[in-house]
């Protein structure tokens, strides 16, 4: 299990050091600094073995978090725990920065004491932690309050406390997708997938039981069998094949496995209900058509066309195309039909920005790149052209069919809950080789 946890600033100074096991000595703190933080080379592995001690590290802005152990621990768990720790700290005091950590070091020690016992991760849900780890110090709690805290921390529904009340029961669903693409210069899709998240913000009273439904092909096909064949044919078109999905711990996994229904008691406030991945029938919102011509040894001509491929009534936003240029570029001349384009020498690329673009349109940029003559034998590697954008639909085709709320003890029904659904499609790694 985890033997010790250290937090360093970018210089390698220790901000937090908490040792859980005897086999991790004080010198472990220095070993990591000397061998990893101060090592000249780029970090080539997130797991480092120094003198029979294994170090797992993650970096957040310029803060290093490292876990040390001498045992054969569950490596995936250690990383998941480090991520979780970042989440918890962010939930308590905002961004992870040197100042914030120094200002809250007592709190951090208190948290570390609670969420990691003898190196074993314990309940680390922020909602539960905030009920009894506060900076004010817990004053006189009644016996009931105390046992409520402990039963929540250890209980089956560790993520929600009882007795929440809202005057207006409301919930928000955001379907956020990032669409990833790797395309060959000839326009062949080398790989494409959508990774999506359903984020829910719930402001609901009591302990509501929720049921979430979407146009999952497996569910729709199953229902289609029961209904008329006509209906099945109709809905079959709209359904999507989900390759795989993972759920927040509040979702009953065994129920999903057997009935493929998503039911849960939500945490209060914002949380990520599920993540999913699809690879079939993805709507690629943009197509990039590159044309690079080398004119002699000192000149390149680049022409890039982008085509939007969705309903004309919808608008894409924050469009940005990055066209990489060689390292020996001396000057660039750009002409574009729409938006603004600039050559950024520091980033070795031409950045072309368009604020808005409707569906089924196309736009074009052409650039002349002057090169300095070099004697470098190696050809320019031609990194891919990347693209960023935001569109108001889900590229996977996912649709929310319903989200039903049941709360038997309190006096409100599914109809009284105000529900909001929003779809956002963003570019993930959206690249076209040139």
């Amino acid at each position, binding site marked *: *299990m985890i033997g010790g946890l250290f937090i360093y600033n970018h210089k390698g100074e*220790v901000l937090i050091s908490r040792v859980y096991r*005897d086999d991790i000595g004080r010198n472990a703190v220095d070993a990591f600094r000397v061998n990893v933080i101060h090592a000249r080379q780029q970090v*080539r592995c*997130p*797991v480092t*073995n120094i003198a*029979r001690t*294994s170090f797992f590290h*993650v970096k957040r802005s310029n803060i290093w978090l490292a876990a040390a152990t001498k*045992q*054969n*621990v*569950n*490596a*995936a768990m250690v*990383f*998941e725990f480090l*991520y979780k720790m970042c989440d918890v700290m962010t939930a308590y005091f905002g961004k992870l920065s040197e100042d*914030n950590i120094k*200002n809250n*070091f*007592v709190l951090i*020690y*208190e948290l570390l*004491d609670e969420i990691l*016992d*003898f190196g*074993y*991760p*314990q*309940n680390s*849900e922020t909602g539960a932690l905030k009920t009894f780890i506060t900076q004010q*110090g*817990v004053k006189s709690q009644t016996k009931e309050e*105390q*046992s409520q805290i*402990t*039963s929540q921390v*250890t*209980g*089956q529904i*560790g993520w929600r406390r009882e007795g929440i009340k809202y005057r207006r029961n409301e919930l928000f669903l955001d379907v956020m997708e990032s669409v990833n693409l790797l395309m060959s210069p000839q326009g062949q899709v080398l*790989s494409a*997938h959508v*990774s999506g998240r359903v984020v829910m913000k719930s402001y609901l009273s009591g302990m509501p039981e929720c049921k979430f439904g979407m146009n999952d092909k497996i569910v729709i096909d199953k229902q289609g069998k029961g209904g008329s064949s006509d209906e099945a044919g109709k809905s079959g078109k709209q359904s999507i094949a989900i*390759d*795989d*999905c*993972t759920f927040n*711990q509040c979702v009953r*996994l*065994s129920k*999903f*496995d057997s009935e493929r229904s998503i039911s849960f008691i939500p945490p209060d406030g914002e949380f990520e209900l599920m*993540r999913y991945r699809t690879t079939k029938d993805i709507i690629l919102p943009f197509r990039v058509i590159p044309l690079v011509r080398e004119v002699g040894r000192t000149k390149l001509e680049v022409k890039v066309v982008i085509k939007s491929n969705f309903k004309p009534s919808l608008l894409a936003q924050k469009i940005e195309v990055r066209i990489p240029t060689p390292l020996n570029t001396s000057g660039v001349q750009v002409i574009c039909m729409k938006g603004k384009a600039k050559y950024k020498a520091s980033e070795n690329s031409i950045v072309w920005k368009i604020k808005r673009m409707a569906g089924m349109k196309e736009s074009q940029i052409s650039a002349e790149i002057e090169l300095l003559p070099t004697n470098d*034998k*190696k*050809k320019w590697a031609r*990194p891919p052209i990347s693209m960023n954008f935001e569109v108001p639909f889900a590229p996977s085709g996912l649709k929310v069919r319903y989200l039903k709320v049941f709360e038997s003890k309190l006096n409100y029904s599914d109809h009284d809950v105000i529900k909001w659904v929003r779809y956002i499609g963003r570019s993930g790694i959206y690249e076209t080789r040139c």
Partner: protein
Amino acid sequence: MTDSKYFTTNKKGEIFELKAELNNEKKEKRKEAVKKVIAAMTVGKDVSSLFPDVVNCMQTDNLELKKLVYLYLMNYAKSHPLCTDCEDPNPLIRALAVRTMGCIRVDKITEYLCEPLRKCLKDEDPYVRKTAAVCVAKLHDINAQMVEDQGFLDSLRDLIADSNPMVVANAVAALSEISESHPNSNLLDLNPQNINKLLTALNECTEWGQIFILDCLSNYNPKDEREAQSICERVTPRLSHANSAVVLSAVKVLMKFLELLPKDSDYYITLLKKLSPPLVTLLSGEPEVQYVALRNINLIVQKRPEILKQEIKVFFVKYNDPIYVKLEKLDIMIRLASQANIAQVLAELKEYATEVDVDFVRKAVRAIGRCAIKVEQSAERCVSTLLDLIQTKVNYVVQEAIVVIRDIFRKYPNKYESIIATLCENLDSLDEPDARAAMIWIVGEYAERIDNADELLESFLEGFHDESTQVQLTLLTAIVKLFLKKPSETQELVQQVLSLATQDSDNPDLRDRGYIYWRLLSTDPVTAKEVVLSEKPLISEETDLIEPTLLDELICHIGSLASVYHKPPNAFVEGSHGIHRKHLPIQHGSSGPAAPVDQPQVIPSQGDLLGDLLNLDLGPPVNVPQVCSMQMGAVDLLGGGLDSLVSDPIIIMHPTLCGWKNIIYVLLSNSWSGPGLISVDFLLLLAVLNFCVLQVWLPAAKAKGLEISGTFSRRQGHMYMDMSFTNKALQHMTDFAIQFNKNSFGMIPTTPLAVHTPLMPNQSIDISLPLNTIGPVMKMDPLNNLQVAVKNNIDVFYFSCLIPLSIFFVEDGKMERQVFLATWKDIPNENELQYQIKECHLNADTVSGKLQNNNIYTIAKRNVEGQDMLYQSLKLTNGIWILAELRIQPGNPNYTVKNTLNEKVCPNLWPVLYNIIWMQLWMYYS
């Protein structure tokens, strides 16, 4: 938010000031002071002198202050029982107290801890119980005996039936950890009832608890396939968990239990299908988790390639992936490459070969070569891709490409030789030994087709002594090949290289090989041709495969560090070699003849074994040394040395094409270590230092057709048991395993026996088994006796052999001069032994040089009355030092051996020393 100010105070007399503040009347001031103390502690200052003052602050009902004080206590507690807090009405404080007490590692305190802990384990509040469960593990770490005596293990087992899932999870975690160091491995008492309880808790506890439970479940061996299937059914939903560690642990359980399911059942096929999507999903996580996932997928792909064979696209490298993710993805891509997807894979690899990171580019180039070897249909395209890359003239790309082209030549002889001309153009730009050696090998191998082969090789000869050993050896072989192919024009060249290798070089490997060639060429050129230009063994398609038994063990460790390092836990965890290794479950009632590979085989007690061994006729007096002469020219070369081996029980040269003739073949004709070949150093050492003579340890007649011959050696600081298995039966043999009985040096195999493919009739296989000396020790007679059990699908066989003591001589056996002097004097006379060596005509320097090669170090040299006196030391793996005095008189050197610790070593040591010196001398003069 002003806590950071506590870090900044750094004045004189700080401790004094803090002391005053801690005793301040005002509560707030005291709280401030404790914060300062903690800050000082964090930066590493010694604030232990404030102990009583800080403890005074504990009497408060302020929880925050209390926690701070406890934090301080954990670091500095010398003695202070905290029992009272365990009775506190607030469960948070009770739990805090028990948590903290477990961290105080002072024996006296732990005694106080027992009573409160017992109460807390039965506390009404689950929060206290789950904390107490972990506390038992802490206590076990401090005082294992006490935990057992106090019955805490039983209390923990009771907690598995607790109503609260988190208590169950923590109890499971604690018990799992304790059982790792506990002699009774089934501490958890995993039976169907308990498993059911765990599976129920699995649905209800936190993500971390699920990991503990799944890791524990993976250690369970279901009694039949029905049970295995029902557990799998209840574990499968975990594959959809958002926490990647839960997913990987679930994959581990499923991968293990898959072994128990019948391969043709529907459920088996469905389960395999279910495994692939979650593994792919892991790759959309954070890069660190991706890395862990990829290392595991690498194992899973080797074990069950069918799971991910359709998914090769997800392993395509993204431009912005961190380098560690890129390298791992590339590895998996090659494993998944097949005829169906090769076009896509090649296009990708070509793309990668133009990237920036040098390591990555090299690996991509190497991957193209591996594709060519793996998928025959693609070989032509791969070769042309490689040629394109060579045209780029990027130095490291060219060199890497040449290395892989050599392998392609090996795999497809007489197919792509047309490109040799292009390769030769790049001769001058090669500066890495690997690439130079590869190029030289190609020139030597195809000398008859390259018009100016002699010129090319001659150009390398100019700076012969500046080349690395690898290049020198290859060059030597290449020129001999050239000579055998075009004898008329290259006589001068071969003379030149032989004299460079034998007379001007001080590298023993090179010199020895030079002599072998020289002799071979001068005695019998026909045989020389047969040996040097012999047909080469095939190279394997897959490379870097993990040895199957290790792979099975690593599958049992999916998700853990072992799976990230691809090493068994005992390779990197201290003090863990005693613990039981994990193995995959074995399907019950399987029809195949294969017995479980990893089931411990009981070596019969010594008495029985001795009886057995006598039956095997292995005792030295029973058998007349049997030396069989070879029909090869090479025999003359080595024949003279055979007499020296009379001290050993049986010596047989294999008359068949296996064993040592084969070794010589390989040694002489393939002077490079490509895939599928054993390293040249090993062969050279085997052939030259140990006379290349394998003793027959287990004759075929006694082992149902399996013949084992072997020898021991020490190379680069590691010990090896080099064996040759020959199948003289009519059926094929599989499932080899080996085990040693306890022995004087605690010698055990480092890795399991690696025999991948079935051993066909009349086939033989050479194995080099790495050894170490961390096993159990039992004194044997003679001291260097080793009893071995070898098993295959037919039966278990026993034999014993003598370990040459020289392999126990460690590299750091050089004693300090002063220490040597002092020790020499202290050794009692009865520990001293004296021997004489006859017919030795060497001077002192040569002798000490030769001995040093075998880790016997010369500490000092004196000249007394015209005689050279050498003082030498050597150290055995078990820490015994042996000191020696060597007196050299022309024609009659006296060797006095003095032994520091254990006189019993000496009689055995003598033949060893004798052997080493004698064989060295012989090699020198022959």
